[in-house]
């Protein structure tokens, strides 16, 4: 059935010169990832060591004030911490002891570094080590940085998962590890498809509870489900695990190629593969073709945001009939992104990093039919007459694999259809 896809482009974008400009970046910092990570890891607590700005970001960015007492908080640095009047490490011990006393349900605690904690060089790794020893075996304490000076938006999840890799035990078992925090429904679908092909055992990083964890070693094969997990990828490499490089599982084509690449590693026959995938593939194709009706022949412009831009541009151009004008990503890691870049036909500007004002100039000049951008830009661009899809929804909504392929196309077509629907003129 693979032949039903358009052939790969004769020239993909993997060797296209990348446009790099330095100016204002209109992106979230890595702390934002806590908003979905704390829901995924149900016994974990995320303690940001930062400023009032960090706390304000967390509650404003996603409008997440829906949990009376969430599993994240900020230890706000005060004047005395900065002036060295209080020993910051001792203060942190006090805050963590208070927290763990109040929340005995916490099994793993992440100390999350921020811009101010990085600048004053507060050593959270050391703190995590000390606290792990103190609170073992009840609580495991790890640290990572979600600071804006080091991470962009989804890189926070990457830093968090990368911090978990070194503490996984060693194993020689040949196992498949799926890497990335996916919504439960999506994760179960992926595991279901792979198990139906006879692949297993299958592990997931992050596990939803600390006790569900497993070992890792030279016989571990891993596949990334999210394109932003580059540090985690490198941490797994250091543990000797083997990367299965594939296009990311968005849309029918991405999902099929991703599954096929894994299936090849486990010696799954073509017949078996077809048997397992045929029905969901047909559903995905039907759903995408219906949901992408409004997108055919339209142009799309990506501002850098979630790091999903390149795989999504591949999906929109190859499965939804769109034409990409510019594909901006916060950063481009070739080892992870090449399979998708190969499939993305040459043509669009590929941009890394950002000078937002110059990029807005290019966007307005190109007048795309659809602009994918962050929340700070969406309404201003709509007011200028452009149709936008705000990108944060792409990391909050189940969009991976076959059964969500139609929903993914729908996320992009809804704003286009909406603009056609609204009629405010007088009827005459």
């Amino acid at each position, binding site marked *: 059935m693979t032949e039903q896809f358009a052939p790969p482009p004769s020239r993909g974008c993997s060797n296209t010169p990348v446009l790099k400009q330095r*100016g*204002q*970046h*209109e*992106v*979230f*910092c*890595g*702390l934002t990832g806590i908003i979905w990570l704390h829901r995924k890891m149900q016994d974990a607590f995320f303690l940001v*060591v930062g*400023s*009032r*700005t960090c*706390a*304000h*970001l967390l*509650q*404003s*960015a996603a*409008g997440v*004030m*829906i949990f*009376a*007492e*969430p599993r994240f*908080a*900020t*230890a*706000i*640095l*005060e*004047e005395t*911490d*900065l002036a060295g009047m*209080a020993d*910051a490490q001792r*203060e942190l011990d*006090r*805050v963590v002891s*208070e927290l763990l006393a109040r929340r005995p349900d916490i099994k793993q605690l992440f100390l999350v570094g921020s*811009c*101010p904690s*990085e*600048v*004053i060089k507060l050593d959270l790794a050391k703190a995590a080590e000390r606290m792990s020893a103190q609170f073992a075996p009840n609580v495991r304490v790890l640290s990572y940085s979600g*600071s*804006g*000076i*080091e991470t*962009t938006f989804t890189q926070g999840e990457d830093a968090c998962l990368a911090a978990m890799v070194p503490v996984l035990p060693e194993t020689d078992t040949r196992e498949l590890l799926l890497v990335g925090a996916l919504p439960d429904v999506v994760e179960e679908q992926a595991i279901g498809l792979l198990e139906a092909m006879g692949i297993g055992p299958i592990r997931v990083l992050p596990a939803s509870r600390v006790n569900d964890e497993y070992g890792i070693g030279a016989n571990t094969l891993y596949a990334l489900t999210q394109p932003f997990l580059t540090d985690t990828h490198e941490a797994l490499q250091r543990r000797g695990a083997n990367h299965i490089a594939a296009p990311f599982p968005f849309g029918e084509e991405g999902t099929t190629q991703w599954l096929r690449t894994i299936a090849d590693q486990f010696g799954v026959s073509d017949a078996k593969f077809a048997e397992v995938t045929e029905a969901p593939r047909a559903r995905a194709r039907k759903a995408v073709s219906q949901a992408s009706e409004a997108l055919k022949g339209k142009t799309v412009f990506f501002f850098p945001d979630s790091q999903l831009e390149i795989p999504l541009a591949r999906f929109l151009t190859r499965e939804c009939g769109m034409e990409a004008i510019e594909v901006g990503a916060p950063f481009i890691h070739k080892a992870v992104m090449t399979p998708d870049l190969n499939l993305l036909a040459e043509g669009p500007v590929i941009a890394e990093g950002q000078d937002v*004002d110059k990029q807005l100039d290019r966007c307005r000049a190109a007048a795309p039919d659809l602009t994918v951008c*962050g*929340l*700070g*830009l*969406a*309404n*201003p661009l*709509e*007011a200028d007459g452009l149709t936008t899809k705000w990108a944060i929804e792409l990391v909050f909504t189940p969009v991976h694999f076959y059964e969500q392929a139609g929903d993914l196309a729908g996320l992009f077509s809804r704003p286009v259809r909406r603009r056609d629907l609204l009629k405010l003129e007088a009827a005459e």
Partner: protein
Amino acid sequence: MKLTVWTYEGPPHVGAMRVATGMTGLHYVLHAPQGDTYADLLFTMIERRNHRPPVTYTTFQARDLGADTAYLFKDAATAAYERFKPEAMIVGASCTAELIQDDPGGLAETLGLPIPAIPLELPSYQRKENFGADETFFQIVRHLAKPMEKTARVTANLIGPTGLGFRHRDDIVEVTGLLMDMGIEVNVVAPMPASPSEIAKMGQAHFNVLMYPETAETAARYMEREFGQPYTKTVPIGVGATRDFVAEVAKLAGIEPVLDESRLRLPWYSASVDSTYLTGKRVFLFGDGTHVAACARIARDEMGFEVVGMGCYNREQARMLRSVAKEFGVEPLITDDYLEVERRIEELAPELILGTQMERHIGKRLGIPCAVISAPVHVQDFPARYSPQMGIEGANVIFDTWVHPLVMGLEEHLLTMFREDFEFHDDAGASHHGHKAKPREIGALETAEPETDLAQSASVNTDAFEIVWLPAAEKELKKIPFFVRGKAKRNTETFASERGVSEISVDTLYEAKAHYAR
């Protein structure tokens, strides 16, 4: 170091952004790391603004810190001037940039821009958003406004409105109308939506109307001192306060007070018999000091509620709020700790919360209705319709907004009469709220487990000893409709503890009821 779950106020540079975004022709160059741009979405998403906030962020990263971050600031400021051509600029640092000490003010000066570049010193590790707005507006006024000859006719400036302000957009219209009815013209409204050149003309007004002390009190004091402009002390939220405000303005302007009350409906709505059920409803208020103080007066004097507690999150208003609380005979709660507010509400078990978006979440968790009276607020509190808090229409809006979360008067009677009816029961909720009614299976009440929807377990610790609810009393308590059950429970426990009764029986419950009967 302070453990914080939710915050009532952002950092001070967000206050500066609220001033800059409210204004026109002003640009803010903010030395800040990548990620601080999240603040744009407060304005573009929560307030639905159709343009980007006029803020350029330097968005430095870790690799820039090794080199020279000062040049990043200079480049950003120069580029921002060339691109946006503002009439004036404010420059400053966010929390992280404050630590690297690049001195944005000094750097901006060296650029020799042909416009004023106003430096802001906003200590991020000591102060918060309201301070940031107040200080920024003060600095703008100090740098741009000068003493001037007063206008021939009596005019006033309206000061305090900012971007992201709770109903500021509509309050401006309402207060402008109040002044116009008295023949007083508005000179400048600032910071929102004034431009720097309009700020320069503020000195020609006869007096200032201080709409929001949180964001403009320092500027008001400065202008009183430097330009001889007195400012109003009454914030016209509520009927009584609006009348007081008109009297105060008349005195400042040397004219007779005039107030057009033809559209005022709150007094009649409150007097009409349907409102009888509002009598003595126990309310708790929390928010910024100004809104809480004004709303406490409305709650008691204009709605006939009983104010059982109040507090504010901004320490700048602590002294004022303490004196208001004293007058109301309640303990003031001055804190920005969300969990502390939640605990106080749980203790007091009010029948209505008047608060911020945070208290709305507390109310949701505890099953207590809540109406929003103060920032911080979310997207639903920036309504499309005209919806002021100040003046005549503000009073009307407040009546509707506060009554809406409650169960309606007649419905309350039906719930009390038929409390075990399969349609009229506690879980059904108020009939005008849009959730699905849950019919109760006939006979379900008898078999239902006790205490399933009581906030606490059947025993409570008072200071002195433990009080236990006997099963029969607990069952009886459950028959009391949900919207008064919290009050009944609390009254009974207070009654019991005052008398040293450690076990609450059905008799104790009804003795307490008789004791508190009014």
